[in-house]
């Protein structure tokens, strides 16, 4: 391509526009980009996957093996690779887990496509083959469900189903954390199970201690102290406000006009009286806790005088959560709440966790709709990582309330699908045969990664796995602890069927979209002059005038 005619397309486009064409060039470049992305992520998948230390552009440090986080913070710029990232992000949003699978599998599909192109297949044929393979795999997958969670309110069963989502991030902690997440999720499960919202399980991170001192609280946790001197209350009646708890201020700038000495003397006094009356009115409704974004000194003084507790909650999100925990209605104006607007909580109190003071709203009865997992760990990075693992697990639980079917984890399902696909390919007379076989090979990449990341001899392990699957042992997967093979069902390693289905669909869609591209046109960035040092790159040799 070294002599792109100066007159051709580039003459039609704005100066500085990049233009890449022809199947072998554009497609190959896209494939290469996806492969690179896959190479970054592939060492992180599976329980033994390694962590990445990513410093994002804001200087925040992430230590994680969660593929969704890694690719989000990587800020991938290549347009084709970005399609794959988007697929992973969709997976993260829809299912919350399985992002590593999407990227690794996608990258492998792409690099297998490269082999097919070299063989002489046209991209259209590859796309068709991949599509058929995916359709076949999805129907087979539906039939492969070997177990389902009969009751999403049963903590034991749920914990088993959540194990693998946590094991893939924090191997060795899965039993403990899955238990915690199951406890939290089950405790807030609404009667109508499909109404379960991930918002209802919160994570409070408290630095210090160690991971196994983490615990679940029914209710909400705020990581700071209360305002006044009253620190503990049982059977709290809670009034909540979104406005500052203080004397009212006008939004409009104005001055108070005083005409006589009398008015002058009484001015401040009247303001104080008005505030006292407000607080008194609130106290008279029976409320003994006031929650608001900010408290004035004077208001606090009267709150103390009427023996109420004052809790400052600056975040609107936290306010909403506390409202949901206690059933209070958040009022926009400092008026006494009506009885139905007052929230109730079995106990509100300040507890010291490590040396951090936390305000804990506890609901002992089953009425709470929010549960909080207090995570303890010795480093900030670990705390963040645990939070992500818990988020994933809660998402898995959400899916579990909708679709209870489980398939074998540990790569057993992928191996079995691959075997079925090979068989299926043999029955087809068309060129699709080749691409379906490559699709199967890409699926086998997942157990291979598990094996590689566990430090075993991957090739040997794959051979053994293929052999046992050929013998009809469909539940055999990679034993990451001993770098051997094991029966996934016996070891309680399960994945959600819905997560797998979604991952296969999304990946195949993304891959076929990328393969359809035969031209890339990248406009030159809009905007004025950029800082020089940033632009010392490859695509801006001319001055950005």
């Amino acid at each position, binding site marked *: 391509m070294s002599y792109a005619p100066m007159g051709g397309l*580039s003459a039609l486009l704005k100066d500085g526009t990049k233009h890449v064409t022809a199947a072998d060039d554009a497609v190959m470049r896209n494939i290469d980009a996806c492969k690179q992305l896959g190479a970054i992520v592939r060492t992180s998948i599976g329980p033994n996957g390694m962590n990445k230390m990513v410093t994002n552009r804001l200087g925040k440090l992430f230590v994680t093996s969660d593929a969704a986080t890694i690719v989000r913070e990587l800020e991938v710029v290549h347009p084709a690779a970005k399609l794959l990232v988007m697929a992973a992000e969709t997976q993260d949003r829809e299912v919350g887990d399985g992002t590593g699978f999407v990227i690794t599998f996608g990258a492998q599909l792409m690099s297998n496509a490269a082999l097919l192109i070299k063989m002489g297949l046209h991209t259209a044929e590859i796309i068709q083959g991949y599509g058929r393979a995916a359709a076949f795999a999805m129907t087979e997958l539906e039939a492969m469900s070997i177990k389902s969670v009969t009751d999403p309110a049963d903590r034991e069963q749920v914990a088993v189903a959540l194990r693998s989502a946590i094991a893939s991030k924090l191997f060795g902690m899965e039993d403990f954390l899955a238990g915690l997440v199951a406890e939290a999720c089950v405790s807030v499960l609404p009667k109508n199970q499909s109404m379960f919202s991930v918002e209802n399980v919160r994570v409070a991170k408290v630095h210090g201690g160690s991971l196994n001192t983490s615990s679940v609280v029914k209710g909400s946790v705020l990581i700071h102290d209360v305002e006044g001197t009253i620190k503990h209350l049982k059977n709290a009646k809670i009034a909540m406000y979104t406005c500052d708890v203080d004397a009212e201020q006008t939004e409009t700038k104005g001055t108070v006009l005083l005409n006589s000495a009398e008015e002058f003397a009484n001015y401040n006094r009247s303001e104080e009286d008005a505030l006292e009356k407000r607080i008194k009115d609130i106290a008279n409704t029976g409320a003994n806790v006031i929650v608001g974004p900010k408290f004035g000194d004077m208001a606090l003084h009267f709150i103390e005088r009427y023996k109420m507790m004052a809790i400052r909650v600056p975040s609107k999100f936290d306010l909403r959560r506390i409202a949901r925990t206690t059933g209070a209605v958040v009022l926009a104006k400092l008026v006494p709440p009506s009885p139905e607007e007052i929230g109730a909580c079995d106990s509100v109190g300040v507890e010291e966790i490590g040396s951090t003071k936390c305000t804990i709203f506890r609901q002992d009865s089953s009425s709470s709709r929010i549960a909080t997992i207090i995570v303890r760990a010795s480093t900030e990075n670990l705390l963040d990582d645990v939070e992500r693992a818990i988020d994933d697990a809660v998402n898995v639980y959400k899916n579990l309330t909708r679709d209870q079917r489980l398939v074998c984890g540990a790569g057993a399902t992928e191996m079995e699908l691959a075997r079925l696909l090979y068989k299926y390919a043999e029955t087809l007379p068309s060129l699709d045969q080749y691409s379906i076989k490559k699709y199967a090979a890409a699926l086998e990449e997942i157990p291979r990664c598990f094996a590689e990341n566990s430090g075993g001899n991957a090739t040997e392990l794959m051979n053994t796995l293929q052999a046992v699957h050929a013998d009809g042992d469909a539940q055999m997967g990679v034993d990451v602890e001993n770098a051997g093979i094991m029966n996934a069902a016996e070891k309680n390693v399960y994945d959600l069927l819905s997560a797998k289905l979604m991952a296969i669909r999304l990946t195949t869609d993304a891959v076929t979209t990328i393969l359809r591209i035969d031209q890339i046109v990248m406009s030159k960035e809009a905007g004025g002059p950029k800082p020089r040092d940033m632009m010392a790159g490859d695509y801006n040799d001319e001055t950005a005038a």
Partner: protein
Amino acid sequence: MSHFLAPQIVLLKNGTDTSQGKGQLISNMNACQAVGEILRTTLGPHGMDKLIHEGRQVTISNDGATILKLLNIVHPAAKTLVDISRSQDDEVGDGTTSVTILACEFMRNSKEFVEEGMHPRVIIKGYRAAADLALARIKELAVDITGNSESERRGMLIKCASTALNSKLISHHKGFFSEMVTDAVLSLDDDLDLAMVGVKKASGGAVNDSLLVEGVAFKKTFSYAGFEQQPKKFLNPKILLLNVELELKAEKENAEVRVKSTKEYQDIVDAEWKIIYDKLDKIVQTGAKIVLSRLAIGDLATQYFADRDIFCAGRVPQEDMNRVSRAVGGAVQSSVVNIPADALGACGLFEEKSFGNERFNLFKECSHAKTASIIIRGGSEQFMEETERSLHDSIMIVRRAIKYPSAVAGGGAIEMELSRYLRDQAKQIQGKQQLVMNAFAKSLEVIPRVLCDNAGFDSTDVLYKLRARHAEGDAGRWFGVDITTGGVCDTWEKFVWEPALVRLNAIAAATEATCLILSIDETITNPKYEAAAPGAPGMPGGMMGM
């Protein structure tokens, strides 16, 4: 159009730095090691102090958490160490150096495995298993120190406090300070709120002139004319706590006064005076003899109070105010109108006293006394600061010991015992994990080793003796380094006691940190945000969220 010729694929944003693989892992470990080396010499009774010069501020300390905080570490992996020492500080308050040294040693001993090609996950698994065994063993060995009587309990706590002080600058006075600290903590309420122990510094005098005030002490605040006429000593005074400014001032920023005649003008001026006199009058009417305010108390008020034999202090810091409120049982009032009688506090004795050239207000014999203050005396600012940090550690230790009353022997004894136990356990394991567990066991020996090194003893020699003693079984379980003679001794007998929680948390945190570092195989650094001008490539709005 030269870029057409260079088929470079731009996957990541320009300027993004990625490094991957084993080399990366080892470089992270080395960075941590470098930090560990700095702290190594500060461990133990004979540990040396560090002087950290930052701008114009000089800090002398041997407190691990303080040093790490001041070092301003930027290496992302080494920051983990700062985190764990902080965690130890938050959780237990002492042992911040130990936790860092342990983590570094765990890494050092895992390095050779990594270099030999063992998968880091295998090491992580082994370390976690070893840590679990070690933690269980500590719980099994820990001795209950609840004590049968109050005095026995106090004695036990003093021993814990003095072990914490062993390694500090003021170790010569540990007997003196450990009693002081224990009494201060014991005087607290059940929740043992750290903020209720005030530590104040008054320069001048000798260290042993430091004293414990069972009640509250704070430095005299800035005062106006008339202050000297106020009485400085009261028996059984009533105390009023305010959050009110007692000065002539604009009543309201956005109020405007319009007057039509000079007479009216005079009325307004009078009204202003009347307002403040009313306030002062109401205060006097409450019967309070001492008036404290978080805000300023001006000339006029000071004079007014002096005439009526009332003591006042303005601009009292918030935390002191809280302590006074807890001690004397009064509630802080933001208005002087309708002050209820129960909002006033009371104490047995109030006096103003000089220490060196500082004057302190002391509230003693408080009715609700759930607070205590320690006044530190000493020659230099740095010395007093380090004393304050040491006392903080020691206070934390006593608090923890009250909450979780079980202790183990210090001086490296518990580490040696754990090391022996793990080695025994390792023999029953087949495969690579045996090596890993042995490495963990070996790493634990670093604590007695560094104790010896820092004291100038032959660490190899002492370690052999210790191993031999611990191999004897139960009789030798508490043998640790004898820091006075350079030999070994039963440190439990010598009353070198530490709350078990210190060791539990240290081992758990160090293991967590090591596992975290071991699990990283790639570092990706994105260019800083400020340079990314609007409309940079591949940055649609959707990517901005986090």
